[in-house]
């Protein structure tokens, strides 16, 4: 039985359908998301965890109503990027992940039972000698989804930000970001980095389009501030959630071990591959330079 989707995950699915053009000289667009429909995922508002916002409920109600007046049916060019959404695995990243590889990388090892976050319970296979064990079958599908999403973002020239506050594995994460030609922030998180970016960086700055957390906690074992900031600014997040982490605000949670260097190196290598494949496809499909 798979865990219910997080609220922000459903929101991101809707955004993916609307974020189809990033090219400057693209014109009108038809947006659809048959890929999701084809997989038969059930996006029920009521299926979310407690605290459904009235906004979304009203939004769902509004769906049934007619289109607003200022929206014009204006189809000129077929969106090249939307073709990528027709395919279940356009970038071939789903085959990169295997259960045996994850097992060898010790992804299945969680923390002790006492540290367990109750929201992680659905992702656990069980408990062995006091140690929580992740259900790698669930992790497989969730990791594949996360990699696919990452590749799509890279395909569209999005800015990807790697985050972690785990000091032991931090150099690896920084290196992965450099090699993938993306960005990383593995240092102390200043409060206004996203929410007050114009003042912090001195000028209007483009914020990341995806945040990948290799560790969703900070050094005080509290959720990383960037998780809530990303949610505030509607930046989708991918996060490796350990058994002591809170997965609720992460768009694409990937339950797994985030403390062992071997595991983190494994995740980093796969994220890097996904990004590079996405960028390669971008060049091949003529969407942009890099």
């Amino acid at each position, binding site marked *: 039985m798979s865990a219910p989707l997080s609220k922000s995950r459903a929101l991101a699915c809707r955004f993916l359908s609307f974020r189809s053009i990033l090219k400057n000289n693209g014109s009108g667009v038809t947006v659809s998301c048959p890929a999701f429909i084809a997989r038969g995922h059930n996006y029920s508002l009521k299926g979310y965890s407690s605290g459904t916002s009235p906004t979304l409920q009203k939004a769902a109600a509004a769906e049934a109503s007619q289109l607003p007046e200022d929206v014009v049916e204006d189809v000129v060019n077929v969106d090249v990027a939307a073709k990528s959404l027709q395919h279940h695995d356009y970038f071939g990243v789903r085959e990169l992940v295997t259960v045996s590889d994850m097992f060898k990388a010790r992804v299945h090892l969680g923390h002790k039972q006492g540290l367990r976050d109750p929201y992680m319970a659905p992702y656990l296979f069980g408990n062995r000698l006091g140690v929580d064990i992740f259900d790698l079958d669930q992790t497989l599908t969730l990791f594949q989804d996360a990699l696919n999403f990452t590749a799509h973002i890279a395909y569209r020239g999005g800015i990807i930000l790697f985050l972690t506050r785990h000091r032991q594995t931090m150099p690896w994460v920084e290196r992965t970001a450099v090699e993938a030609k993306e960005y990383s922030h593995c240092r102390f998180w200043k409060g206004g*980095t996203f929410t007050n970016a114009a003042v912090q960086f001195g000028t209007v700055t483009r914020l990341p389009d995806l945040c990948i957390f290799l560790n969703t906690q900070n050094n005080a074992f509290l959720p990383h501030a960037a998780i809530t900031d990303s949610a505030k600014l509607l930046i989708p997040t991918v996060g490796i959630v350990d058994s002591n982490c809170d997965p609720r605000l992460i768009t694409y949670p990937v339950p797994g071990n985030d403390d062992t260097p071997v595991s983190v190196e494994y995740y980093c290598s796969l994220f890097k591959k996904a990004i590079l494949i996405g960028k390669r496809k971008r060049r091949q499909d003529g969407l942009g330079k890099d």
Partner: protein
Amino acid sequence: MAAHMGRLRHAVLTNQTLLNNWRVIVSDVLPRQFHYSCTLDADTPRPSKAFNKPAPTKAEKISKAMKAYIERAQAQDEMLKRETADYEIGKRHLANIMGLDPEHMTDRQVKESIQYLLPSGLYDLPSRPLMKPPQKVFPKRKDAQFGMDGRPFHSFFYTGKPQFYELLHKVTWKLEALKKEEDKLRDSGALFETEEKTEKLSLHENEWISYDTLKARVMEDISQQDYGQFLKLMTRFVEHPLAHKEARYIMKFRQRLNRQNFGDKIKPLKTAKDGRSFMTAEGYRKSAVADVTVRGHGSGRVAINGSDLEYFSLSMHREQIMFPIQFVNMLGEIDIESQVSGGGSSSQAGAIRLGLAQALTSFVSPDVVEKMRLAGLLTRDPRRKERKKPGQAKARKKFTWKKR
């Protein structure tokens, strides 16, 4: 309700909402009559009342910012060019006036010429007439951090201190590389110190660059805590047994010790006719003057004004003389001869000690000399008798205080 989301609507949207907009806000695609808690006014392109031109999207703002930066950069480059041309012409005129060679006029000569031709008595030095190359006068502009598409150039841009953290990142990976090499050497059994280590990496004559130097080098606003972190990392780096392989890189972060250094005052050893090395030095304390000769290849003989250590009756004074020799572990290896005059017994002992320590600096390595300096052996004791003041019994002692 479940069916609602299962059937994602086919929304057909205008160019205005999607084009050049990296993140579409929920309010853009949903009917406007509801209140949305998740809208962000700064990013949402609200159509203006005139409805002719909506407010600029973020992408447009960024490309405008980049265009403006490029214009400013070009304007500054052109201005610098003009100023440099004027400066060069001015320099030639100046050389003409002063009778110097216009082809090979140095900046120092320019400065001196201006000071001669336009003397100024103003106390505020920057207000005095100056003639410097324009690059040094006009402030440098901060380079653009990102390109036209808004993507920053530096991978650590979002941290706020990209150059500083890149430095730490580099050093961390160099250390990791050294660790790997050490493992390889250990596996092959060849992990022991060689001569080359001490030659390549000498850290006793220099210290880590200061906070200000690092800040200027990195061109970022780093805090004292950041500097502390930098020092910790570099110390760990240097302590690795294979750190000498990165000696060149490490030396970039070392500066000459600008605190007191005895290194310049070490004199080379002299050789006597009988082949023994020796060194002479003078020592002072209060009004005592001691002339000390230290001879190598000795057996610990001491001669003060012709007599033995018995010259000093108190063991305290004898220990004072022994202290420098014991500090450098040369007890029984050297002979001492000394002529001392002036002062009292303690002063004479102190004078001999200083002279002896100074002479010993020629016998030992600079590391040990630095340790001697830190122990206070090489410092002339400047204390003298404090004068008696009027209205007091002695230098410090006051007369009895009476309340009434």
